């Protein structure tokens, strides 16, 4: 990792292997490259680092509710009163390190009375755990170099020139000349580390997921019991969502069984919602998917995707008898159908411009019909029922105008009493070569029994290049 600083590239972060090879952060990149010729470097991305640190900070909330940033690569956590939850301070630090390593980070952890002292201790000892008993941070800080304190480079250089290399040497000096020489700000820095002066942390409030866990007194296995649990959990989740002004797009309902396995159910909604009956019903419909077997002992309800709830009036101000709310598609019902087992697809039809009628419509997901229904003028009637695969029929056509007289479909003969046509459609020659010059002549026919059919003939009946001259049944009026 390297970054541009003062018109030259400087190494800002190194891997353990590079550290072993003698590279250190702060070294010029050119020097590092001369030391290790096949060095793999990447430019520092401050934005991504900040995002990753934010991510880690919101993860750290498991430890204590008060995490804070120490930019660019550190985190604070105020664990006052939390240590006993993890079995003591030493165990807690082990756990923190273990979990951070499980996430792929190398870290050094320090715990002391003050945040500044912990920071100095953690930053001076790479890859180790440092636990300072209460009131002893002065002794702990004594041998540390001054660079462990957040002092500017200029001050550090002056201190080194004066021979003050450790914090201990600095604390032994009389305060008044020190303040006069380096300014009160430097002294504050030292006081914070030693606990003489309290410094507040700016605590990070992570936007955590809304997740509810309920451990059940006794394992449950009936669907009624699961429904009761759902009915108890959903209002709490909805209350939390409403307090945030957000709505759920996806809910995960996890049931931990007695044997340790997890039964997971996931439902999605088409728009953000914090509506209790709607979410309850969505989840309740999924109960048959859950196999409780020996019983469920813990349930977890998590909002895995949420979005801001759009502010809109709950009800129209004017009472509407047959208003737009009635004719609009009900989102709750569509959600239910989309999440329902046994439903293959839910779609709406939209006309599409295409030469051949079988390609003339598209299936779109519900609620997407934004464009008004097809406005292009259609001179000819179109059937209500359309076969995607035209059915081959045998037709006796009446020459010379090509009107069909008789039709044989599935060995049954239909005589045609009336016909309207032909409507000539031309293939999309700009799409495929087969459609070049392809012609279809469409006829609306009525048989002697009154059936209304939509037939077409491939080709114009005279030229071989325009089509084979076979007849097909494409639709029913």
């Amino acid at each position: 990792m390297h970054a541009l600083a003062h018109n030259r590239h400087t190494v800002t972060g190194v891997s353990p292997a590079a550290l072993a090879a003698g590279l250190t952060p702060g070294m010029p990149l050119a020097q590092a490259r001369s030391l290790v010729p096949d060095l793999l470097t990447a430019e520092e991305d401050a934005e991504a680092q900040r995002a990753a640190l934010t991510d880690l900070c919101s993860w750290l909330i498991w430890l204590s509710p008060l995490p804070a940033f120490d930019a660019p690569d550190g985190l604070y956590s105020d664990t006052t009163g939390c240590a006993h939850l993890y079995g003591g301070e030493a165990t807690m630090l082990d756990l923190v390190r273990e979990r951070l390593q499980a996430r792929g980070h190398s870290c050094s952890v320090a715990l002391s009375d003050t945040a500044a002292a912990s920071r100095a201790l953690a930053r001076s000892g790479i890859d180790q755990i440092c636990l300072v008993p209460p009131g002893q941070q002065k002794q702990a800080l004594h041998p540390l170099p001054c660079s462990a304190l957040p002092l500017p480079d200029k001050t550090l250089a002056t201190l080194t020139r004066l021979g003050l290399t450790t914090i201990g040497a600095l604390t032994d000096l009389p305060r008044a000349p020190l303040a006069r020489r380096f300014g009160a700000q430097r002294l504050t820095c030292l006081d914070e580390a030693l606990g003489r002066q309290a410094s507040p942390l700016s605590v990070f409030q992570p936007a955590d997921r809304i997740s509810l866990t309920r451990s059940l007194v006794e394992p449950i296995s009936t669907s009624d019991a699961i429904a009761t649990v759902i009915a108890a959990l959903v209002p709490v989740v909805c209350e939390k969502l409403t307090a945030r002004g957000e709505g759920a797009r996806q809910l995960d309902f996890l049931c931990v069984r007695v044997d340790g396995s997890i039964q997971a159910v996931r439902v999605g909604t088409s728009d953000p919602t914090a509506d209790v009956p709607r979410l309850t019903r969505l989840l309740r419909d999924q109960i048959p998917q859950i196999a409780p077997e020996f019983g469920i002992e813990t349930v977890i309800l998590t909002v895995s995707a949420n979005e801001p709830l759009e502010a809109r009036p709950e009800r129209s101000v004017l009472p509407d008898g047959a208003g737009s709310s009635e004719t609009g598609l009900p989102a709750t019902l569509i959600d239910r159908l989309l999440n329902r087992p046994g439903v293959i697809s839910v779609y709406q039809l939209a006309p599409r411009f295409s030469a051949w009628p079988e390609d003339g419509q598209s299936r779109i997901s519900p609620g997407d019909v934004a464009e008004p229904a097809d406005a292009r003028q259609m001179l000819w009637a179109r059937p209500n029922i359309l076969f995607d695969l035209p059915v081959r029929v045998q037709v006796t056509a009446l020459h010379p105008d090509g009107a069909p007289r008789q039709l044989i479909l599935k060995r049954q003969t239909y005589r045609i009493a009336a016909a309207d046509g032909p409507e000539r459609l031309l293939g999309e020659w700009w799409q495929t070569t087969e459609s070049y010059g392809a012609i279809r002549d469409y006829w609306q026919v009525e048989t002697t029994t009154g059936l209304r059919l939509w037939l077409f003939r491939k080709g114009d009946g005279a030229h071989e290049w325009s089509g084979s001259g076979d007849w097909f049944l494409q639709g029913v009026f």
Partner: protein
Amino acid sequence: MTTDAVARLREQVRRLERRNFPHSHADTLPTGHSAVDDHLGGGLRTGSLHDFLISDPLETGASLAMLLPILKEGRGPVFWISDTPAELNACGLHQSGVSLEHLLCIETQPDNLLSVAEDVLRGPERALAVVAGRHVPTLKEIRRLNLAVEASGNTGFFLRSAPLAQAPGKDPCACATRWRILSQPSSPVSLPGLGMPRPGSRRLSAALLRVRGGRPAHWILDCTDHAPLSRSLDALLAHRAPPAFPPGRLSDRQTTRCARAGT
């Protein structure tokens, strides 16, 4: 007897008659045919089920010609529930006046068809549901759906295949009405210059096989929405392909005219 007791008794009777629902006032969906509407007292009742028997797949269009105007009248979105992909055509439905924005197609597995239909019909949302499936619902299943539509006021339509020879439609029926709609030959319109007459306005033979609390009936209906020459004559004649005459059969005058036109 105090008025309080009378009110209570009235309430009991109302509940027995299943009229305690807010939409109990008889709402109907007019069919658009005055004879049918008069016979049914205004049209097909909402909050009930209607059964349309289709004797042949090619006859589906006749049932649709009856059903689509009813769906157009109905308030609320239309749910087309089927266990096979619906063979509906967006352009044709648009021409029939059905709003595509309010038409939602649901394809289900065959076993789940009726349970999905029940979910749609029972829900608090307004809905018209068309159930198209091969499965013939039993009386028990239909009664279950009947309870759903009575509770919600939604209306359901069954479109099911029932060949005339195998299922004459006389079996007991729990739906409010049962129809068998067949095509009837129309009176073709002959226009000069056309080899074949054009089909006239669509004619249906609508048989009301069963109706709850009413008499069966049969009508020959003319669908006025397919009125002949609903568009202007020049538009009608403009977009036709030229008749394919064999080269030798053109008279001299026609040949010269074709030559002058550059064809």
